[in-house]
């Protein structure tokens, strides 16, 4: 039935076994072997292999090994590996199990060859990941988790509805490239779009990632959105509508990332903007562009993960990740700073770092297609990224105003994880050709040209220059202890407010109605008691006279009928 064991099953079965392994080194090593095994099995899988099974009258393709899925599968396995190292110190079984389930679901979804399997894993990522938020065990995290879950499962049920419509119209459950011509594919696109944090359905990301545990945020940042990118690349490559969506995604969150106070939320906005790049790449849909989207997803997983790790380490030691409460940690946490710098350099697309070699694929694809405005938007977003992910994180955490914080260095496992991730970031930046070799398509692209290096350096340096010049002017958006209003304002303030009023109104009506109904019923009972009760006229039995009257009346009525 199976040509080989689906790597997702490695994760899932390990997650079931994990609680039975004693906490500590043994459990840590056990969980670390899982992504290694899975990655190895993906690496060695022959292209075109598949694992199919017949179930409920459908042929489910549990595994479809091709360039795109292999690439994402490897990325996810590798991400799981570094995340697990980063979370080595965690002793919370719930988080450990859900991490494995989450990574497993993501890997499974990537290899899903049919829509039903995809749906199964799609929901799996939603359910497994929410525990990483709830595991913070605070009231705020509880509510955030609920909101997150509703959105994620919402994406799942929309996907389900889309699949049902798709199956109904086409009779096929295969997960292949689709065109936006039927309600089914629009619905499926919406489902993917929610997970990919399209504009207006993006806010779950900024709401929930910063609310997770320290390690949870890192893990969350790796999988869900990248899975959506994979799904979009698989299903909707070359869909023009995605261009506009992607461009908007790249630009608008950048603005938020500027004035956001919480660093993890800042990173979440930045992540959202990076997703915009990938969506644009998918929207362009050429082999180069899809390669770019995939490559950028890979790079993004790691440099964003690295930034989240850095901020997480700071949070771990200081208890806060707010700009207004941080500053001057360069001395006390030098390694963390160094690794975070690598991440910042990567997202800023400095040459020799990962963003440089991946982002340019997408920009080049946009250029090839002569999409000037899209290209400009992406360039603008790149410039913004230099500030909000590169400068802002580093500056306000490690330099800036010294708040007198003297934390200890990050724990070794965190530093190790950051180190490995930093190496990956640099490796992608330094060895582009080897990296490109892993991509789904063979396009023969070369990232390093004088022109490219210089222009990119110009962009970065002038952004830095502008920052340094403007920093002490009134133009500079100085950090304040604020929360940003986003689309979640609608469902966290407006809708509850309206619902509260509606609920009060309905309750009022309901109580009134109930009261009235009770009154009517009790009046009816009382009235019938008065008439039919033991003392009522209907139940009166003693007066013989009235009975005679009835007899006479009845006779009279009967006789009257004679005349009809």
């Amino acid at each position: 039935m199976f040509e080989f064991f689906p790597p997702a099953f490695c994760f899932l079965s390990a997650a079931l076994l994990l609680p039975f392994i004693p906490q500590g080194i043994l459990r840590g090593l056990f969980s670390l072997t899982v992504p290694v095994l899975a990655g190895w099995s993906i690496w060695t899988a022959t292209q075109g292999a598949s694992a199919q099974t017949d179930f409920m009258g459908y042929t489910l393709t549990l595994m479809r090994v091709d360039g795109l899925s292999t690439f994402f599968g490897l990325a996810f396995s590798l991400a799981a590996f570094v995340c697990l190292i980063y979370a080595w110190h965690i002793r919370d079984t719930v988080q450990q199990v859900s991490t494995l389930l989450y990574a497993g679901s993501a890997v499974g979804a990537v290899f899903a060859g049919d829509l039903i399997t995809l749906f199964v894993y799609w929901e799996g990522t939603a359910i497994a990941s929410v525990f990483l938020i709830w595991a913070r065990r605070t009231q705020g995290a509880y509510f955030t988790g609920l909101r997150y879950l509703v959105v994620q499962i919402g994406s799942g049920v929309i996907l389900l509805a889309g699949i049902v419509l798709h199956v109904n119209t086409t009779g096929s459950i295969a997960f292949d490239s689709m065109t936006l011509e039927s309600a089914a594919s629009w619905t499926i696109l919406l489902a993917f779009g929610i997970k990919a944090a399209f504009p207006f359905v993006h806010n779950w990301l900024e709401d929930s990632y910063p609310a997770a545990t320290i390690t949870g945020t890192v893990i969350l940042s790796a999988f869900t959105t990248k899975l959506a990118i994979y799904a979009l690349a698989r299903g909707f490559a070359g869909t023009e509508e995605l261009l506009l969506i992607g461009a908007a995604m790249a630009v608008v969150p950048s603005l938020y990332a500027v004035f956001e106070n919480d660093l993890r939320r800042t990173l979440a906005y930045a992540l959202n903007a990076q997703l915009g790049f990938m969506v644009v790449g998918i929207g362009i849909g050429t082999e180069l562009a899809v390669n770019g989207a995939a490559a950028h997803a890979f790079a993004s997983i790691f440099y964003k993960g690295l930034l989240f790790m850095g901020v997480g380490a700071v949070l771990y030691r200081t208890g806060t990740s707010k700009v207004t409460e941080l500053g001057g940690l360069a001395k006390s946490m030098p390694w963390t700073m160094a690794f975070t710098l690598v991440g910042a350099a990567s997202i800023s697309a400095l040459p020799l770092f990962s963003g440089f070699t991946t982002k340019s694929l997408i920009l080049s694809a946009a250029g090839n297609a002569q999409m000037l405005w899209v290209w400009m938007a992406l360039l603008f977003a790149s410039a913004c990224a230099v500030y909000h992910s590169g400068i802002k994180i580093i500056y306000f955490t490690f330099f800036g105003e010294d708040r007198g914080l003297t934390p200890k260095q990050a724990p070794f496992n965190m530093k190790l994880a950051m180190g490995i991730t930093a190496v990956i970031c640099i490796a992608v930046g330094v060895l582009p050709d080897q990296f490109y070799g892993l991509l789904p398509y063979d396009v023969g692209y070369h990232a390093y040209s004088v022109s490219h290096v210089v222009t990119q350096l110009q962009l970065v340096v002038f952004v830095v220059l502008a920052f340094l010049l403007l920093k002490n002017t009134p133009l500079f958006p100085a950090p304040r202890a604020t929360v940003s209003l986003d689309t979640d304002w609608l469902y966290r303030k407006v809708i509850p407010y309206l619902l509260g009023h509606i609920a009060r109104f309905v309750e009022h009506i309901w109580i009134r109605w109930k009261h009235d109904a009770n009154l009517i019923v009790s009046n009816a009972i009382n009235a019938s008691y008065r008439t039919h009760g033991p003392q009522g006229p209907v139940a009166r039995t003693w007066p013989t006279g009235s009975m005679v009257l009835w007899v006479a009346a009845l006779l009279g009525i009967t006789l009257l009928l004679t005349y009809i």
Partner: protein
Amino acid sequence: MTHQSPSQKGRSQSGSNRSLWITLGLAVLLGMSSFLYEPHGYFEVEHIKGFYALFGFVALCVLFIAAKVASPLLTRHEDYYAPKDTLSEEFPENQLGRENKDV
């Protein structure tokens, strides 16, 4: 808000001055270098000398202005969503490894 001694402030001030000069220097170098090679771009605009430099500088200015304009509209005090929000609460202490550097 922690109180800062004047010396600390002075140090950070001088530090940022130094980085400003370094960056300025780099910027000038890179700006000049645009005249040294022929860029192979996809669009007309890329052939403008120093386009990327200008773009980066302007982009950040635009971004800051936009942020300045938008932030009063789009930000509220961090307790705005309390208590159903994590921003307004402390990170649970038992999940932290809050340790200070050995003195």
